[in-house]
C-alpha cells in the first residue's frame, strides 16, 4: 500500500489541532551532562582494571628499602603540595572547556539557541532573575557588529549557568557566565578546542567563558568589547 494514502478527514483535524510538545529548556543540556557522566564512569572503570596490572618488583637491597621508602614519602609530600593542586586544577579547566564546547555544539544542534529570544538587554537580563543565583551582566554589542540574540539557561560544571547568545555575521557566540568566588587564578584553559576558539576570564565573582567558531582575532575583539562595557 502506498505510504501517502492518508485521505482521512480526521488526519487534517489532528494535524491542525493536536499539540506537538516541545522539550523544556535545559533538557538537551541535562542529557548531555548525564552522557558525560556515564562516559566518565566508563573511562574510570576501564582505568581501574587495566589488562596487565602486574606489580613490578622493587629492585633494591632489603637494607636500603626503609630509607628509600621514607625518602620517597618526603619527596611525595613536598611535590604534592604544589604540583597536585596545579595538575588537578588544570584537569578541571580542561574538563570545563570540554563541557563548554559540548554545550555550544548542543545549542546549535538542537536548534535551541535561546530560551528568551531578544536583542533587548533589558528583556534578557530580568529573564534570568530568579532562575539563577547570579545576575549576569547583559551587554549588547550590536554597535560593534556583535548583536545579542538572546539568552538561555544551561547546565555545566555541575551548576545552572547563564548562556548569552551573540551573533557575528553567520557565527554564533555562546557566552557562559556563572558565579565563582575568586581564589587563586586557575591555570589557563586551552585557547582552542576541536576547532572552536575559547576564552575564559574572571570579573569580580563571575567567571566568563566565550566560545565560537569565529577566528581568534574576532573573538578577542568580542571579549574586549564585553569587558570594556562591563566596567
Amino acid at each position, binding site marked *: 500500500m502506498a*505510504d501517502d494514502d492518508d485521505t482521512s478527514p480526521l488526519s487534517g483535524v489532528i494535524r491542525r489541532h*493536536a499539540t506537538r510538545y516541545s522539550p523544556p529548556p535545559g533538557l538537551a543540556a541535562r542529557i548531555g551532562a548525564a552522557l558525560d557522566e556515564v562516559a566518565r564512569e566508563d573511562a574510570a572503570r576501564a582505568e581501574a582494571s587495566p589488562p596487565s596490572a602486574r606489580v613490578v618488583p622493587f629492585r633494591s637491597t632489603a637494607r636500603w628499602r626503609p630509607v628509600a621508602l621514607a625518602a620517597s614519602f618526603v619527596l611525595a609530600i613536598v611535590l604534592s603540595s604544589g604540583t597536585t593542586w596545579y595538575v588537578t586544577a588544570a584537569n578541571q579547566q580542561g574538563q570545563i572547556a570540554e563541557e563548554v564546547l559540548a554545550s555550544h555544539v548542543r545549542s546549535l544542534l538542537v536548534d535551541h539557541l535561546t530560551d528568551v529570544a531578544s536583542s533587548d538587554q533589558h528583556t534578557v537580563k530580568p529573564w534570568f532573575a530568579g532562575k539563577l543565583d547570579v545576575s549576569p551582566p547583559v551587554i549588547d554589542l550590536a554597535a560593534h557588529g556583535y548583536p545579542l540574540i538572546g539568552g538561555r539557561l544551561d547546565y555545566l560544571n555541575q551548576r545552572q549557568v547563564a548562556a548569552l547568545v551573540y551573533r557575528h555575521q553567520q557565527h554564533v557566540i555562546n557566552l557562559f557566565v556563572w558565579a565563582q568566588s575568586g581564589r587563586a587564578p586557575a591555570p589557563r584553559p586551552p585557547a582552542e578546542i576541536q576547532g572552536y576558539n575559547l576564552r575564559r576570564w574572571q570579573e569580580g565573582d563571575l567567571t566568563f567563558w566565550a566560545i565560537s567558531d569565529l577566528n581568534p582575532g574576532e573573538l578577542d575583539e568580542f571579549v574586549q568589547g564585553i569587558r570594556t562595557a562591563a566596567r
Partner: protein
Amino acid sequence: MTTPTGPREFERLALPHLDAAYNLARWLTRNDSDAEDVVQDAYLRAYKYFAGFRGENFRAWLLAVVRRAAYDWLHRNRPAEVVPAGDMDLEAVAADSEADNPETALLRRADQKLVNDMISALPPQFREVVILRELQELSYKDIATIADVPVGTVMSRLARARAMLAADGRRRLKESTHGR
C-alpha cells in the same frame, strides 16, 4: 576515550531528534516531568547500545528506544494503562465507516482541547501510531520498526484509532451541546 564512541558523536546524531523523542514520550506518559525522565533514560540507554547500532535508520532506532523506555515507565507506574493490544486489533475494523466519514460537526468544531483529549483517551498502542503518523509524519515502515509490529498491524491500528477518535469525538460533541 575508552568508550568505542564518545558522547559527542552520539549527541551529534541523537539531539536533532530530541523534539520527536520528547513529543512521543510526552504523549505516552501524558505528563511533562515524566516525559523528561523517560527521554533522559532513553538517551542514556541508547548511548549504551549505540556501539551496537548497525542499522541505517537512526531516528527509527532511537524512537524505538524512547518508546521502550516509556512503556517500561508505564508498566512500573501505571500498569493498568498497558493492555495488550492483540485483542483490540481483532475487533472489526473494515466495517467501521465512521473513520472515513466523521460528522462534519466534528471537523468544524474540533479545537485543540477536544483533539488533545480525544487522543489522550486512546490506549497507548493506538495513541502512539496516531502521534507517529499524524504529528511526526513517519512512514508505516518506520512506525512498524518503532512499535515493533508488522506494517499491516500499524495500518490496522491506525484505522482502528481513527474509528475510535471519530466515535469519541461525536460523543464529546453531543455531551458539550446537551450537557451543562
